[in-house]
């Protein structure tokens, strides 16, 4: 992995974390893409009683 792709990956994970945070603060389910990037299974997240 090059330094450039590493930085891009870090930012994409940060972006996914921000998107997921934004969703949970609004009591909504985060988007599938964001959860996938964070390594979270959608079904597991859906099971949490938000």
């Amino acid at each position: 992995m090059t330094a450039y792709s590493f930085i891009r990956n870090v930012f994409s994970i940060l972006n996914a974390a921000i998107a997921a945070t934004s969703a949970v603060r609004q009591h909504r389910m985060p988007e599938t893409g964001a959860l996938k990037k964070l390594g979270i299974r959608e079904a597991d997240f859906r099971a949490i009683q938000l």
Partner: protein
Amino acid sequence: MGAFDFLMQGLATAAEPMMLLYALIGVTLGTAVGVLPGIGPALTVALLLPVTYRLDPAGSLIMFAGIYYGGMYGGSTTSILLNTPGESASIITALEGNKMARRGRGGPALATAAIGSFVAGLIATLLLAFLAPSIVQIALKMGPRENFALMVLAFVTVSAALGDSALRGLTSLFLGLALACVGIDQLTGQARLSFGVPELLDGIEVTTMAVAMFAVGEALAIAGTRVQADESVTAVKGSVWMSRKDWARSWKPWLRGTAIGFPIGAMPAGGAEIGTFLSYATEKKLSKHPEEFGNGAIEGVAGPEAANNASAAGTLVPLLTLGLPTSATAAIMLAGFQQFGLQPGPLLFATNPTLVWGLIASLLIANAMLLILNLPLIGLWVKLLTVPKPWLYAGILLFATLGTIGANPSSFELGMLLGFGVLGYVMRLFGYPIAPIVVGLILGPMAEQQLRRALSISQGDWTVLVQSPIAATLLALAALALIVPLILRARGKGQVLTQMAGDED
């Protein structure tokens, strides 16, 4: 005197019997509200604001900080045992923690969460203590234009950087800024936006606004949400203690969680949740047992819980050193300082070191109290969940009303409480963030004062705002914080980078 000496002095202050009592009340209340789903530290501190204004400032602030730390601790209990996070920063804990509990490993899950929170809280508080003096030294060199630029950065990041819609965030912010203009102009003595109402000449009371938005609005919102929760508690089987293997698998995630949570908490618009998501993703990537994630991996509890607590101390860095709130709870704590006539920031370290260092040192004591309170009393905390929800909501509304009337005995104030409470509910209903309106109301007058000072010094020349390298950098960062999320949303609702990195994988 160095940071260590100040911290020792602070410990002496925080160890006074009354201060210990305030800290104990704070952490107990904080743990209770952390356990109760839907009620967070922001709501609790807001509720207590009007009640505590006649108390000792140091004691009240120590209690507020205890509530903040306690809320972060308590949230994990219901996440693990009920799969129902007590507050949003504990959502990630539920992913692995509840799976562990269902497999009969609830005890180690609770233990790693509590010990991880303790370790993270301890390290992060020490980081706060040793970083704060350096930041204060830099902050003392900042003039009006730099301070104004810093507040603009805070406004933009709190309202536009995080959230679904920058427009909604900015609307909420400008509503707060408009409300901040109500009252007599400090410079000219001219009444602004008071519409001839004498009660408005003093401006909008920040405490009333905070209680209305965070207590009344939140209580109405959670009461109005249909909950179909299966609130069956998973019994804690076996030992509560962690095995040698659990310790070996937990200590690195605790440290990594702290390293992630602390800076994220200190970032404007950071908040504890981002750190927990990042910590979970990191632990899954670094784990030797990635297959266990989703089935009850202890690293998935240890890391996010540490990140969660470290972020609470991180939030206090900009609050205490620069007077900048980076989260809703920090905004309300700032209102708490202001109700005692104190302004957090570099000058507070010089004018009131006993209070500031007492507060920082009390966090260390509160942290130890929380570890003792949480694990042995787990059964007691779970019993709190049997309190009927309608009683809880009614209690919040009653307490908010009595507290506000007690602090400002006027029917006009009560009307404002209810009016802003309904506004808070409607804003939640339509997805408008609450933090920007409160931050706007609190920081608005200060930003205006700094801007006017800078313009007075430059004799009305606006370019002075970008002539200082620090101010120019801060304003450029604010512009980036506004523009970058807009571009990302426009190019596929923020999924562009995710897809790019996905392609790379």
